[in-house]
């Protein structure tokens, strides 16, 4: 059953991610990404990470992607009719990379022995509330420090964005 779900979500994720890259219009790209994010959230659900699935949808799809679209609209970006001039070389480079990655990733999973403990709906795979509670607890106990750091990251991002994007600027302010 989960294989079917995985097949669907996984397949969609793969396809939409390729579309993100392949579609020339950034708006379409962004929309593809949106679709992809939803399907990733679906994968998260399969993997018993309900909280993250929610966050994925809310933060990523809701906030980040909207920001993207907003900027795309703001800048009135026209259709991106060409790929970068290096795309052929890039393709050539990526072929071995793809092959190697597949070799390493599949081989790796095989040799680590994690395979044997294939995912089952174990004791952990309960309701979303459990998962959220667990994550919340860890976040504010074990991961308190990173949490605070993350807040700083956001602070920097916020102020940075303001400083950079502000229209009227220093020259006038000081003189």
């Amino acid at each position, binding site marked *: 059953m989960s294989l079917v779900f995985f097949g669907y979500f996984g397949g969609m*994720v793969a396809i939409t991610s390729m579309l993100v890259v392949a579609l020339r219009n950034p708006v379409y*790209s962004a929309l593809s990404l949106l679709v992809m994010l939803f399907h*990733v959230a679906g994968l998260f659900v399969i993997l018993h*990470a309900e909280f993250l699935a929610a966050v994925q949808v809310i933060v990523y799809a809701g906030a980040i992607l909207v920001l993207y679209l907003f900027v*795309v609209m703001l800048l009135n970006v026209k259709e991106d009719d060409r790929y970068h001039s290096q795309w052929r070389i890039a393709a050539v480079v990526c072929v071995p990379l793809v092959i190697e990655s597949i070799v390493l990733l599949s081989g790796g999973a095989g040799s680590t022995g994690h395979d044997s403990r294939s995912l089952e709906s*174990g004791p952990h795979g309960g309701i979303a509330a459990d998962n959220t509670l667990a994550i919340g607890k860890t976040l504010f106990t074990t991961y308190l420090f990173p949490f605070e750091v993350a807040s700083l990251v956001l602070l920097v991002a916020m102020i940075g964005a*303001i400083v950079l994007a502000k229209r009227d600027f220093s020259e006038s302010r000081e003189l």
Partner: protein
Amino acid sequence: MIPISYYLILSGIVFLTGLVGVLIRRNIIAILLSVELMLNATNINFVAFSDHLQDLGGQVFVFFALTVAAAEVAVGLAIIIALHRSRSTINVEEFNLLKW
């Protein structure tokens, strides 16, 4: 039921797609979108491993990765706006004042 390698392969595909996107798109926004693909590939990995290992650490990591991604997007878009304001383009190919 689903072997972990499936997730790995999937994330690998997404990751490489994102990587290729960074390499071949000219539009800086599209490049950022590709970077998002890469981050999502990471997230898939983390969550898959988290479930596989029965360890919450991976999920927490994804949480933070999302946060950072958001922050990055904010800064990135601000830079793009500023850049667009001064250069009237967001075509990365044209940003080559600095070279050699």
